[in-house]
């Protein structure tokens, strides 16, 4: 096997033999709960609408194919594949994603990706955490008024990072029960070189894929919510909607997205520059902050390393940018409203 081929096989699925058998069973029990709910929901919908099965299977197969597609990550010098669970949750719903992920992981176990005893653990991190976090972020941002591509992109990004954070936690809990917090961070650091580029890839890929669907067939993004679950209800219409040849709004960025992008970029840049200056000019990590946090009972944070500071501040900056981006339009709106009132008076 050549080097490129080997590099292309980076995956975060936990293989058989890594987790202890007690934890393997425990994760199976938790995973079964979600698969059972997902399967029940599929069964109910199938009863009402048998054609649902073909849609679910084909969309599931499409998500599977996308999730094993190795895309070159230029800045990491390797290729990686998107998780696809955030995308799957947006397209087929989070519960169906849990059921479909169990099937996908079963197939992948025989290809050396993941395993049979670790299927439960992998299902929780990929299908449940990745899917539910992804769809929650997507719906939250959509509700806040973000454009579809941004909501999908952030969902992909956060869904990917949450999946690997969960996998790292599963490893720490199983293998290093005496120092879970410390080892959780160490495993996360171990994943960092591959997962950060992968999360960026997931952002771009999910954003572009969902944007394409939004422009050409927006009903795909909502069909799983509109499937009738009552027997006798009309089946999914086979009549495809007219494709929109040109969308005048396609290249326009709404006000919220604009503010979010600007504030996120600014805050992340400020955070990273400050961290760099703090670490390299003034030296060391923020010991004072660490010890004060530790005295409050959060000893987990005392273990964090230099690299963690960059990661924590980047995530903090991005989250701060989102909040500020949400608040700014309303602040400016109020200001302009007062100005108008003054002018009227």
């Amino acid at each position, binding site marked *: 096997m050549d080097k490129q081929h080997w590099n292309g096989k980076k995956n975060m699925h936990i293989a058989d033999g890594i987790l202890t*058998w007690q934890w393997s069973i425990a994760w199976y029990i938790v995973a079964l709960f979600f698969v059972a709910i997902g399967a029940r929901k599929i*069964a109910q919908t199938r009863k009402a609408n048998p054609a649902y099965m073909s849609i679910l299977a084909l969309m599931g197969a499409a998500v599977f194919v996308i999730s094993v597609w190795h895309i070159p990550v230029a800045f990491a010098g390797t290729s990686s594949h998107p998780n696809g669970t955030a995308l799957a949750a947006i397209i087929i719903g989070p519960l169906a994603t849990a059921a479909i992920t169990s099937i996908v992981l079963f197939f992948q176990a025989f*290809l050396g990706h993941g395993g049979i005893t670790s299927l439960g653990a992998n299902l929780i991190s990929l299908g449940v955490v990745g899917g539910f976090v992804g769809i929650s972020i997507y719906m939250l941002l959509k509700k806040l008024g973000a454009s579809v591509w941004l909501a999908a992109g952030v969902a992909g990004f956060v869904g990917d990072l949450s999946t690997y954070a969960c996998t790292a936690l599963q490893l720490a809990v199983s293998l290093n029960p005496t120092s879970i917090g410390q080892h959780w961070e160490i495993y996360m650091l171990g994943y960092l070189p591959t997962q950060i580029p992968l999360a960026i890839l997931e952002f771009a890929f999910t954003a572009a894929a969902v*944007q*394409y669907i939004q422009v050409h067939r927006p009903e795909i993004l909502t069909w799983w919510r509109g499937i009738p679950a009552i027997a006798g209800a009309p089946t999914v219409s086979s009549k495809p909607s007219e494709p929109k040849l040109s969308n005048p709004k396609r290249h326009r960025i709404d006000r919220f997205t604009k503010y979010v992008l600007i504030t996120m970029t600014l805050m992340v840049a400020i955070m990273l520059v400050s961290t760099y200056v703090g670490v390299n000019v003034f030296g060391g990590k923020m010991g004072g902050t660490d010890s004060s946090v530790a005295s409050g009972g959060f000893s987990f944070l005392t273990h964090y390393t230099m690299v963690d500071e960059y990661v924590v501040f980047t995530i903090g900056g991005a989250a701060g940018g989102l909040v500020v981006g949400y608040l700014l339009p309303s602040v400016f709106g109020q200001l302009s409203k007062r100005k108008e009132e003054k002018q009227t008076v």
Partner: protein
Amino acid sequence: MNKRGKSAQMQAEVEEGKSSLAEEPKTGSVLHRFDARIKFICAIVAVFGAVALTHSEFAVIPIIVCVVLVIFARASLKSYFKRLLYPLSIALVVAVVQLFTGTTVVATIPYLGWHIYSQGIAFAILIFARVLAAASILNLLITITPMETLMDSLSWFRVPSVILDTMMLMYRYISVVSEEKARIYKAQESRCGYTKSVSVVRKLGNYGTVGGMLLVKSFDRALKVGDAMVSRGYTGTSSLFSYSTKKMAKKDIAIGVIVVLAVVALLLADLGII
């Protein structure tokens, strides 16, 4: 390697998930004819046995047994070993972390000052051995059992029909969708979607467009297929599974019991009881 070659290789990698699963066993050895349900039970018991091992030297036994059985089944050793390499990527991350856990220092990394512990080395080797042993067992199972038969055998274990139906349909459509994706990608590539002059951001956008297009096309196809299935009397359940009622041969059961007992004996030996 030129661009076209790289692209072809990438395509091959993309397709690998599908092609490896769809790989039909070429020979009809005794192992191939063995009851799929017993093979599945034996494999699961053996994998759990491998995971529960506490001594790395005992994990070598299933690895050797699997290689011998692959040779006996006249299956491709190349693809067998190729599939064994994949799980090692995560095993490597986990094993490296374990090196720095323990109490007895055996070495210190120069400049960094990090200690490597003897207990950590032993645990890292054990994890590696367990991963290899478990992967070998599953690898052997899929080498001697077609995926369709394996899915069929799951009906005997009372796996819900909704999961099995979705699994069967998905398995069928993975190859269809893969071909569709390869076609769309090729069309986009031929329109200079991935040339050197195209920026990284644009390329990622192009990959995303292929994904979106694939989902749109799959949705359209699914609507047509769904309508066609319903018009032919499909009610949501299929009766494709033959193993749910099929009886097991006594000889196969006896061999299965022997394998399970061998796994139990291995575990007892590992624990020092026998």
